[in-house]
């Protein structure tokens, strides 16, 4: 897969380029940055559904833990522990821990699924310094025509990209 990439070393310049990219409606495949830039997500209107899903997992988690506790402690095998009721006030402790566990694990699995990540996955794209201080805009070359490409190249040069090149 051949890509047009623009390498930046300053996030302010990258922000300028991002504005232009949104304006030009360019098919941006990915922007690789060494640290999280939240404004970038807002600019490209990338919305994550993970917070909502995490809430949903939390609801599922708390109810399933409660159901499991209720089944084991009340229905299946009620024990008399110091005369306390079987449906006990200590449940919230286990419910809390169980909810956190289920929510965290499910959220991680969802994240891996959404980003097509798995253990031992090979990198789609490599560039020297991409984990260091370089911010890279990736554009799928098959989705743009020659006219668009020259426009993009101009824009990248104007906004101060360190390097603009085509990589395989």
């Amino acid at each position, binding site marked *: 897969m051949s890509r047009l990439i623009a390498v930046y070393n300053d996030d302010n310049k990258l922000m300028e380029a991002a504005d232009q990219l949104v304006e030009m409606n360019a098919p941006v495949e990915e922007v690789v940055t060494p640290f999280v830039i*939240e*404004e970038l997500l807002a600019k490209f209107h990338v919305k994550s559904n993970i917070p909502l899903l995490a809430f949903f997992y939390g609801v599922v988690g708390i109810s399933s833990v409660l159901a499991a506790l209720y089944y084991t402690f009340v229905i299946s095998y009620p024990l008399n522990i*110091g005369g306390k009721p079987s449906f006990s*006030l200590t449940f919230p*402790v286990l419910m809390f821990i169980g909810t956190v566990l289920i929510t965290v694990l499910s959220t991680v699995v969802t994240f891996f699924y959404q980003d097509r990540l798995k253990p031992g996955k090979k990198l789609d794209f490599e560039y020297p310094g991409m984990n260091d201080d370089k911010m890279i805009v990736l554009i799928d070359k098959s989705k743009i025509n020659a006219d668009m490409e020259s426009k993009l190249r101009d824009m990248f040069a104007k906004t101060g990209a360190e390097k603009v090149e085509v990589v395989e």
Partner: protein
Amino acid sequence: MEKRFIFSKKLQTISFVLILIGIITGVLAYMHDGNRFWANILFSNYFFLILTLGALFWMALQYIAEAGWSSAFKKVPQSMGAYLMPAMLVMFALVFFGLKYVYPWSNPEGHIEDYSKYPEFKEILAIKAPYLNNTFFIIRTVIYFLVWCGTAAILRKLSKKEDADKSQALKWFEKSRFYSKVYIFAFALTFIFAGFDYLMSLEPFWYSTLFSIKELISGFYHASAMIIIILFFMYKKGYFPFMNSSHWHDFSKYVFMGSILFAYAWYFQYMLIWYGNIPEEGEYYFLRRFHFSQDLFTLNIIINFFLPFIILLPNKLAKNPKVLVSVAFLVLAGLFLDVYLSVFPPLVHSFEGVEHSHPVFGLYEIGIFLGFLGIFLFVVFKKLSKEKYVLPINHPYLEESVLHHNVH
């Protein structure tokens, strides 16, 4: 930007009227029933004392975390810290004149009838006497006074120096950071004992090692709500024109987090005592739930945890200042209820005309509380108006706070 807070005539009149109401109802209560008067003094004073200490803790926390976004608002909690002086003066009045009305250990003979159901009454108090006696209690109150007011005064002085001198601002900031650590350490260490002294020793037979922690958390939580209310009032008057939804959102995070922390502290104390099932410990909750009021007991955790938690969970509501202020008022009502449930249940039976332990709430409770509210408002706003500027103009993080903007 370089604006001074103006303590308007209207606000002064309101606080004076509140103080006047407090004085009148206080005198009436004192003539009618000494026990009820001193119980109310302890209740109202403790309410504002814990808010004051919590506000200073809030400010110290911003310093040690080097939080940038909150630096513009630091004068508000700092001015709330000015109430420490009147609060401790009232505590001294209570300690010197009202001790025997409120604390059963200071006057075992006076309460012997109430505690006749405990044959070991005198024996237990004799064991606890080395700690719970009038002289040591006064000494401890003096120590709290010195430690709290001393550290608060140092922080205020450093803030004043920072305002006056731009070239040395970073040096005063670093010093403030250091004394914030001192405050947090000293406050935590002394408040563990203060919570024991002022509230827990109302029932000298009962003790819980978790009680003071819960009170400490409650102070931090409810103080952040109080800071929001004062800030909203000032925002409406036009003092923080740069405030946006990001600021409100960050304030709401404190209330949200505080509600969870409070519920945690409330629950671990309750659950451990419930599970331990030791009569000496269970007595505390037995009195509140089965003699005093089960409804109020349940309401406490609902308005201190469930409602703020659910209301502030959606992003949009948490960013809305009006919703946030309503929640802050709700949370302060929660503190009112929480302190009420700590102070009144063991004391009501000593009030005049009260046979059994049940909620007593009338003119005296409202009036004396309003009086203290008046003093609190007057002291805080007076202190704020004495500051040269509302914003800490030489604070190294001020710009970050003014330009603060969160994407989400």
